[in-house]
Structures are given as C-alpha cells and as structure tokens.
C-alpha cells in the first residue's frame, strides 16, 4: 500500500486545483457529478487491475463496453419490460467474454495481449455485423436510470470498490497476486493458477458490463461509447503504481489512478488547455507519473529488513 501513496498525493493535489479553479466542484452536486463521471472508468480500472496483477492484459474491454450498449439497445428496443432480462443478459455476456479470454489465454497459452486484441476485433466486428453497421433500437428509461441518476452510479461504484477490496483480501486475491508474481511457485504450492486467472478475466468482463450499463445509461446509445476505454483503463491502473507484468500493486491505488486520470481531464478542461495540446499534456504526464513511480526516492519504498 505504501507504493500507492504518491498517487493519492497527486490525486489530492489535482482535486484541490480543480476546486480552486471551479468552486462549484466543492458543492455536493458538483462533486456528485464528478463521481458519476469517474464511476465507469473506475470500475473498468478495478476490473483491469485483477487481470494486470495476475500478469496479463485485457485490451478487449473497450469493444466489450460498446457491445454491451449496442446489444442492450437492440434487445430492449424501448420496451421497459425487457430492462431486467437484458441487464441480466449483459452481465452474462461480460462474464462469458471474460471466460473465453481467460480460457484462450490459460489453456491455449496465447499471450493475453493477443487474445484480447483478437477479442477486440471479433467483438466489435460481430456486434456491428449483427446490427448492420450502426446501433439499432433504443434503451428503456428503466435501463438508463443507473447511469443517469448520479446516486445510482455512485452507489454502484461504492459496491464495486468494496467488492474489489474484499476480493483482494480474500484467498482469491492473495492467490491471484501470487500467480502474477511467480506462476511456477504458485502452481507448486497448489494454487489453481489457470482458474484464478480465468476468474480475473471474468471480473474484467463483468466490469465492462457494468461500465457499459453506466455509460449507456448516462448518454444513450452510441457506437463509440467504448472507444479507447481499454487504454484509459490500463493507463489508470498503471498510474496507480500497479506493475505491468503482475504481482505488485493495490486495487485501491488502481481505482485512484482512474480518479486521477479523470481529474486530470477535468483540470485540463477547466484551464482551457487547447483541445489539441490536451493530448500532449496527457502523454507527458502519464510518462512522467510512471517514471517518477519507478525512480521513486528510496525513503518512500518499503524499507528492506536486513536479517
């Protein structure tokens, strides 16, 4: 957890800067709005965290979010009665995609970068093949409540964060991180490495389903809803000090990474960094943050005990 301290400092700094630039941010409605906006990315980051800490990547979440929204719109087609069955189906789709990603990665031994890159192509191709190139149908009001009403989004975020923390404290989380740290040692200690990894991918899929529900609810159907979310989620996790390659990092820090990223966008926006240069600033900050994490002062690291 000590590794994660810098990200919380950065986040606190950004939040203060936002509050200074825009005092409305400190009002309940303003802050609620911020939380609502962060929720999908934070949930995706939590899902991505499980995969990354186990030593893998999930590049398919962006496409999966799009798939969830497009599928929901076509199946619900404005019919309120379909809301709950479709919500259940979306969760199942998320878990299923995660399951397939996980099985291909562990059983067929395809590097997850490739597995999920393939999944990204397949998912976005398949869903538009099905709808003929653009989303069809419409979401019901009941469906949209979750993303539109801030309280819901924040509530779901809270549940997700709590669940993620509890999972990482449980045997599952500890064995998952062990598998990411040293797969062989974990296996030889009786850890079902493949199974925990598959489960991690399923959690990532689940997080994409929930993020899809929130994003679809927030702004309605759109073909671009999931665009580049995978990169944002991975960036958030890495900003949180979680090491690509597995075995290191805390889930709360990964979620804080998502908050930091969103706060950064908000701040750049507030200060009117011109639309174009926004990306350049982002790129530099991401590199700088990760570099600073790697070259951190020894004092901030866990002090090794010399025995």
């Amino acid at each position, binding site marked *: 957890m000590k590794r994660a301290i810098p990200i919380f400092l950065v986040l606190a700094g950004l939040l203060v800067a936002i509050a200074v630039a825009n005092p409305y941010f400190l009002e309940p409605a303003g802050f609620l709005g911020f939380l609502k906006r962060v929720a999908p990315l934070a949930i995706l980051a939590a899902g991505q965290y499980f995969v990354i800490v186990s030593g893998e990547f999930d590049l398919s979440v962006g496409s999966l979010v799009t798939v969830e929204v497009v599928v929901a719109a076509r199946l619900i087609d404005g019919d309120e009665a379909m809301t709950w069955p479709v919500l259940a189906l979306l969760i199942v789709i998320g878990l299923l995609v995660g399951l397939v990603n996980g099985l291909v990665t562990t059983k067929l031994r395809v590097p997850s*970068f*490739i597995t999920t890159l*393939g999944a990204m192509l397949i998912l976005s191709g398949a869903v538009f093949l099905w709808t003929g190139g653009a989303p069809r149908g419409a979401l019901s009001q009941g469906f949209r409540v979750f993303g539109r009403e801030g309280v819901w989004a924040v509530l779901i975020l809270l549940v997700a964060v709590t669940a993620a923390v509890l999972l990482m404290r449980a045997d599952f989380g500890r064995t998952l991180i062990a598998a990411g740290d040293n797969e062989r040692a974990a296996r030889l200690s009786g850890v079902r490495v493949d199974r925990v990894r598959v489960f991690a991918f399923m959690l990532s899929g689940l997080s994409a389903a929930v993020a899809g529900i929130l994003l679809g609810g927030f702004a309605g159907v759109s073909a671009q809803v999931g665009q580049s979310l995978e990169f944002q989620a991975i960036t958030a996790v890495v900003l949180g000090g979680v090491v*690509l390659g597995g075995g290191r990092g805390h889930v709360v820090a990964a979620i804080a990474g998502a908050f930091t990223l969103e706060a950064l966008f908000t701040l750049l926006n507030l200060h009117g960094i011109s639309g174009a240069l926004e*990306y*350049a600033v982002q790129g530099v900050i*991401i590199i700088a943050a990760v570099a600073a994490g790697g*070259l951190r002062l020894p004092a901030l690291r866990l002090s090794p005990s010399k025995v």
Partner: protein
Amino acid sequence: MIALVANPTRAVYAALIATLAIGWALVAFDGGAFTLNDIVGIQQRSAALGIVAVGQTLAILAGSLDLSVAYLISLVSLVAAETMAGQSSNILTAVVVALGVSALVGLVNGVVITKLKVHAFIATLGVALVIRGVLDHLYDGPAGRVPVDFQQLGYARIGPIPVAAILWAAVAVAVWFLLRRTRLGNRIYAVGGDVEVARLSGVRTDRVVIAAHVLCSLCAGVAGLLLASRLGAGAPTVGTDGGYDLESIAAVVLGGTALAGGRGGVAGTVGGVLLLAVLDSIFNQLEVNSFFKDVVRGVVIVVAVAVYARRTGRRAS
C-alpha cells in the same frame, strides 16, 4: 536459431499458401478470378503495413513494443509533404527531415523506456499521445503537396512489380541482414531473451533497446513517406485510420515472433503481413462486409498464436 524460428515461420507460409488456394477456389466459385492485377494489389496493399511491421519486429524482438507508430506515420506524412510543397527539388530535404523526425521519436521512445524505466506499453502510448497533440495542434486536415516525381514511389511499377513492394522488400532484407549478420542484431535477440543476462555479459542493453526503437521508428517513417506519396499530401489521420499500431503488432505475432521478445524474425513477419493482405484481397473479391473481416482477422490471429503455443509447448515438455 533457424530450427527454432523455422517452425512458426514455416507454419505462417503454409497458412499463406493454404489461404491463397482456398481463396482462389472461393473466388472462382463466386464467379471471379485472381488476376495479375490482384497480385499487384496484394503487394501494394501490404507495402506500408509490411514496412511498419518489419520495424515493429525489431522492437518486439528486443523485448519492447511500439504503440506510437500510427501517429508517427501521420506526422511523417505531413512533415514530408509540407517540406516538399509540391517541388521536386525539395524531395531529398523532405526525406531527410522526415527520417530525422522519425529517428528522434524513436530515440525518445527508447530513452523513456531505458533511462526513465517506463514500461514500453505506457512509454510509447504516452509518446503517441504527445504526437497526437502536436498533430491536432498544428494540422486541421491534409496538408502539403507531394510532387508527381515522388508520387512514383507509390504508383510506379517496374514490370508487374510496384516500386512500393520493392521498397518493402528492401527494408525487409536490410533488417533481416541486420538481425542475422551484425552485432546489433545478435544483441537485439539477447536483450529480448533476457536483459539482465545480456547486461551482465557486457552488453550495453540500453543502447540496444534505443537502437531497436530508432530503427522501428525509421521504418514507420519510411511507411509515412510511402503513404504521403500515395496520397499526394500529408494527412493527420492516415496512420491511425490504417490502424498501423495494433495491426503491425498483430502481423509480427502472426509471423511467429514471440511477444515476449528474443524469438522470431523478419521472415515470419513478412509472411504474417502477406497473410493479412491475402485475406484482405479475398475479402475484397468476395465483397465481404468489413465487420465480418474484423471477426475473421481476430480469429486468425488468435488461432495462429494458439497453434504456435502448442508447438513450442510440446518442445518444452
């Protein structure tokens, strides 16, 4: 080395031939025919991706990867076209400037990865964002003009063979030679195999990684020049629209190079790129929906890598 690479390489060429045969049959069944023109089309189609993928092979072999190539290609196309400004006399300057910009970007990638110790994924993603910001800031759309002389690079043919294909072949051969016959090539394999071992053995590993990135970016730069010559202008979206970042990585891996580095080579990558291009050509012939293509591409890549994993897995056990 040869024995090891031979497996996936042979596999990808076998797949290539099988795909050609099946494609030819399908197209014939559909009432069409594969003509010389289609073959030329395949060469044209694969040239830009091929050049980027050859460069990407270097980065991946060295245990790294480069997600910034797509934006770099756009940038280079613009820099080149603007420098040429329609004047044949500016071609040489433009090429030099464009390649200089590429090398610089590669240098930044390499230095961020090795000296700042940022994971290649994040480092090159960050550099990609920076280039994107610069592009968005400086350019509103296609800009510059490529003189007709330089357009020859993209359109001319020598006999039935497009100059672009020859350029690609030259880049591939040069990199193949570099990997097989030079110290740098040898060390790229070593660093990709195990950086720590290479370092302790006296290899200046940082330099090797930086060199691999500079070469990778130079290849992207060459691809950018080629695209500028095809388009007759520079375009700020030509790299990303082409999806050269992820597609070049997919082609490299399809060619049997291990994503973890240290294993594979250019021959496989060439096969991988050709396989993707042939698929594309067949899809075009059959007028297959582009979404269906994505599905097939995704499946092909995953299945291919699964097959390689099985083979190497059997060797190891």
